């Protein structure tokens, strides 16, 4: 199973090298990947429908309890099949849709990376690895939304989407960690064994709130919904795949997956009902104000996601069953509607519903798909949408309180959604074909076939619900720890209140379709209300934040090296001297110090004057010479204090440094003193404080006893184990040989750097620009 996930990523990497083949006549080839994966997952249907769960475990960071454990049960199977199945159609569709696009290979790369991440998300049993895949879907969707990266609006939408879903991802991580520390495990399966540990914990509310944050942002719930309409800037295959069928359902998946663990509590249910209810109504009403086909579909998608959250919130067996069915229903018809939108856009170059008419004459198969999807969307009997809608009403009707309110809410939402479906799926195809669309090219096979296939599946499953009942729906319900005996998906229930509600929905939808025409006036009206929308508020917040951060940056990262260094040193001196003031005894043990002899005194004196001279001289050459004197005095100090190796090295290096300076000296800038008097005094005080601090620290350390363990080890074993008598050299080449190895590599890198900097010719644009 890990392989199945990794193939997507590795394919994506592979495309970097093989991209140009894909751009040519083999553009259909990448769709074999999702097809293969679809077949792979489909072969599990048998086992899963018998109630089995397939678990694969790979250790990742066992010490933290983070494993790559993958579980395939009913819920993840449905999602895997949707991801790979719709993925296959989208891949094939893309091959025709973006046929001549310059970056088709990139697109496939992002798409397959996304598919892999999404598969990982729904298969992960470990919440931490789930988080990792969650973030990967956000990132890959960022690239997909911003695919037309020359378009500013597209870049902005991508950033908004990444921001919102990214924040959600962080909340998920926090939530996962809270869950993990409450229950002591990161495995969802293990949490499910004893949910009372979590529901009874005092941190339950916190954990649930964090998970909600993640799910609501990802699944575009109010008030985080606004990134989804923006994300419609992406090419249509992306909208189909990510923003209707798979990624936005990740939040739904998370909620469903955690229902057995976290559900059943009042906080869980009420919040979900409220948020889901607001979202579904708010965006359902929003659909009538839109004229862009994709905009309409985006809002009706948000509304559908709201319904799903709402159903999960109801939390009864009937409502969870409804949610499970509705996920599939929605994926089938909404993907179809998006795909036909793409076909229309490709053919007529517009997505404006006020202009589109009569297209059935030029793209008949697309029109058929559109009508079928609209029927399924509206819940006309014989479509799977009918079953879905039935179950939704059954869920609301069998809830313990506020039946009327909830049912009314669902009813209104469904009416608006079915209206949106008619507008998107039927309106563009009927009526008189305008002149300008007469020349529209007949769509490619891979443009019309995927929507037709998806729409027909919707009808097929509607007529024969038994096809999916045992194979897909029952396992989902059982993976939520609920009984499955009562489930019978039926095409015909007889005359019940539910049927009446369905009829009412369809009727009102149709009525609305004829009474209400999408128009620019309505759209302008709603746009004028944008000021108080969550999106605008967030943007304002962003602006303030950006201004603050640039202020902050300009204050501290001002590009003046001196200021950086001074700031660091000031803080260092202040902090260390504060600690020193509190803890120091200032006892200097003069007795333990060695005596000062005359020649030592002279050497130190020379060194002192050399340093002073280096600092204050006005001549470069004099400074270099004085620096040499300083180096040689240090070299003498090494000689005095039993470090012959150091003395030799210091001597050689000092010679070389002076040679180096002399070689480049006259190529270097003149030795100017640029700072003014005040600055010099300020820097001088800071430097003396810093030097004094170092001296005091050194004396403090000298007053402490030495730990000679390490030195003794080396001294003892130098000859016995390493056959050498010069302990310093033995440490370098034997005991710590690996360190030396790295050090000489660093040296080599420095030399290559020098070589490169000098041999590299300056470009004419770089030379003497200022």
């Amino acid at each position, binding site marked *: 199973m890990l392989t199945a996930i990794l193939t997507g990523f590795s394919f994506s990497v592979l495309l970097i090298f093989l991209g140009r083949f894909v751009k040519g006549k083999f553009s259909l080839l990448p769709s074999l990947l999702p097809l293969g994966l679809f077949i792979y997952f489909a072969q599990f249907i048998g086992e899963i429908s018998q109630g089995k769960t397939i678990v694969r475990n790979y250790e990742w960071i066992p010490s933290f309890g983070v494993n790559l454990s993958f579980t395939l049960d009913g819920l993840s199977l449905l999602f895997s099949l949707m991801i790979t199945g719709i993925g296959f159609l989208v891949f094939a569709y893309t091959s025709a849709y973006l046929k001549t696009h310059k970056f088709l290979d990139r697109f496939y790369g992002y798409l397959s990376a996304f598919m892999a991440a999404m598969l990982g998300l729904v298969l992960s049993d470990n919440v931490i690895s789930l988080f990792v895949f969650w973030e990967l879907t956000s990132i890959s969707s960022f690239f997909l939304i911003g695919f037309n990266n020359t378009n500013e609006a597209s870049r902005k939408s991508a950033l908004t989407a990444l921001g919102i879903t990214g924040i959600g991802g962080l909340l998920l991580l926090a939530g996962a960690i809270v869950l993990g520390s409450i229950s002591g495990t990161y495995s969802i399966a293990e949490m499910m064994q004893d949910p009372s540990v979590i529901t009874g914990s005092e941190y339950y509310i916190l954990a649930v709130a964090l998970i909600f944050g993640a799910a609501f942002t990802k699944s575009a719930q109010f008030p985080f919904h606004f990134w989804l309409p923006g994300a419609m800037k992406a090419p249509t295959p992306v909208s189909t795949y990510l923003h209707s069928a798979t990624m936005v359902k990740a939040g739904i998946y998370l909620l469903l997956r955690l229902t057995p663990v976290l559900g059943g509590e009042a906080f869980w249910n009420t919040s979900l009902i409220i948020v889901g209810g607001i979202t579904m109504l708010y965006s359902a009403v929003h659909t009538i104000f839109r004229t862009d086909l994709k905009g309409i579909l985006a809002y009706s998608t948000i509304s559908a996601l709201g319904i799903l959250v709402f159903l999960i919130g109801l939390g009864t067996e009937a409502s969870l069953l409804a949610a499970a069915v509705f996920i599939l229903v929605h994926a089938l018809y909404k993907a179809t509607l998006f795909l036909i939108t793409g076909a229309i856009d490709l053919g007529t170059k517009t997505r404006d519903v006020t202009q589109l008419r009569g297209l059935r004459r030029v793209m008949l198969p697309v029109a058929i798909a559109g009508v079928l999807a609209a029927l399924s969307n509206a819940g006309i009997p014989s479509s799977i949408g009918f079953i879905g809608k039935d179950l939704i009403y059954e869920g609301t009707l069998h809830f313990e309180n506020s039946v009327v309110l909830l049912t009314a809410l669902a009813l209104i939402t469904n009416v608006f959604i079915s209206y949106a479906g008619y507008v998107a799926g039927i309106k563009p195809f009927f009526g008189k074909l305008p002149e300008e669309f007469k020349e529209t090219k007949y769509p490619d096979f891979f443009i019309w076939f995927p929507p037709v296939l998806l729409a027909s599946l919707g009808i097929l499953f509607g007529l024969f619900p038994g096809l999916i009942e045992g194979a897909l729906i029952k396992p989902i319900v059982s993976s939520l720890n609920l009984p499955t005996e009562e489930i019978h998906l039926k095409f015909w229930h007889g005359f019940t209140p539910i049927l009446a509600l369905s009829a009412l929905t369809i009727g009102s939808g149709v009525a609305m379709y004829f009474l209400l025409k999408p128009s620019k006036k309505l759209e302008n009206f709603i746009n004028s209300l944008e000021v108080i929308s969550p999106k605008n508020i967030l943007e304002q917040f962003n602006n303030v934040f950006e201004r603050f951060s640039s202020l902050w940056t300009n204050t501290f990262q001002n590009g003046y090296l001196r200021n950086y260094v001074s700031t660091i040193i000031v803080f260092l001196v202040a902090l260390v001297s504060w600690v020193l003031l509190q803890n120091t005894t200032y006892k200097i043990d003069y007795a333990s110090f060695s005596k000062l002899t005359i020649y030592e005194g002279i050497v130190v004196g020379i060194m002192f004057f050399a340093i002073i001279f280096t600092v204050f001289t006005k001549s470069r050459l004099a400074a270099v010479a004085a620096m040499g004197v300083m180096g040689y005095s240090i070299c003498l100090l090494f000689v005095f204090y039993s470090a*012959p*190796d150091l003395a*030799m*090295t210091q001597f*050689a*290096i000092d*010679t*070389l440094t002076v*040679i*180096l300076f002399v*070689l*480049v000296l*006259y*190529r270097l800038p003149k030795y100017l003193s640029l700072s003014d008097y005040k600055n010099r005094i300020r820097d001088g005080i800071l430097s003396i404080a810093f030097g004094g601090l170092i001296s005091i620290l050194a004396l403090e350390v000298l007053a402490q006893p030495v730990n000679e363990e390490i030195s003794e080890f080396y001294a003892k074993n130098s000859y016995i*184990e*390493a*056959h*050498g*008598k*010069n302990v*310093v*050299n*033995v440490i*370098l*080449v*034997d005991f710590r*040989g*690996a360190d*030396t*190895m790295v050090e*000489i*590599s660093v*040296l*080599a890198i*420095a*030399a*290559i750097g*020098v*070589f490169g900097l*000098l*041999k590299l010719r300056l470009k004419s644009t770089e030379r003497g620009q200022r």
Partner: protein
Amino acid sequence: MKTIILRTASNYLLPILLLFSIFILLRGHYLPGGGFVGGLIASIAFVLHAFANGLKDTKKLLKFHPGYLMPAGLALSFLSGLLPVVGFDEPFMTGLWLHHPLPVIGSIGTALFFDIGVYLVVQGVTLTIIFTISESA
């Protein structure tokens, strides 16, 4: 700085200094010295020669760019560390020794080859730096 005295002297000094640097390198295990110092002395020898005779002559004498000493030395050091892993199934950088010390050099072991690698790298680095700088200065 192309005086006759310096030029003549440097011609004799170069081999002597090089010999001295190798001497320093080899005795490093028992007495002060070793790869780092040895390499530095050798490069000073070449730099001196370059000062006296011009860089061109020194380069001619060297026959190849000193930069090649770096990979050679790195490879030698690395291989001497790798030998115990490949040949004797011991951890990386384990010291291996011949049982009987040779005259003059003393015991021969992987550490000696490691030190020779260091010697080459240090020499390559300093010469590369000084040569490129004096070429472009």
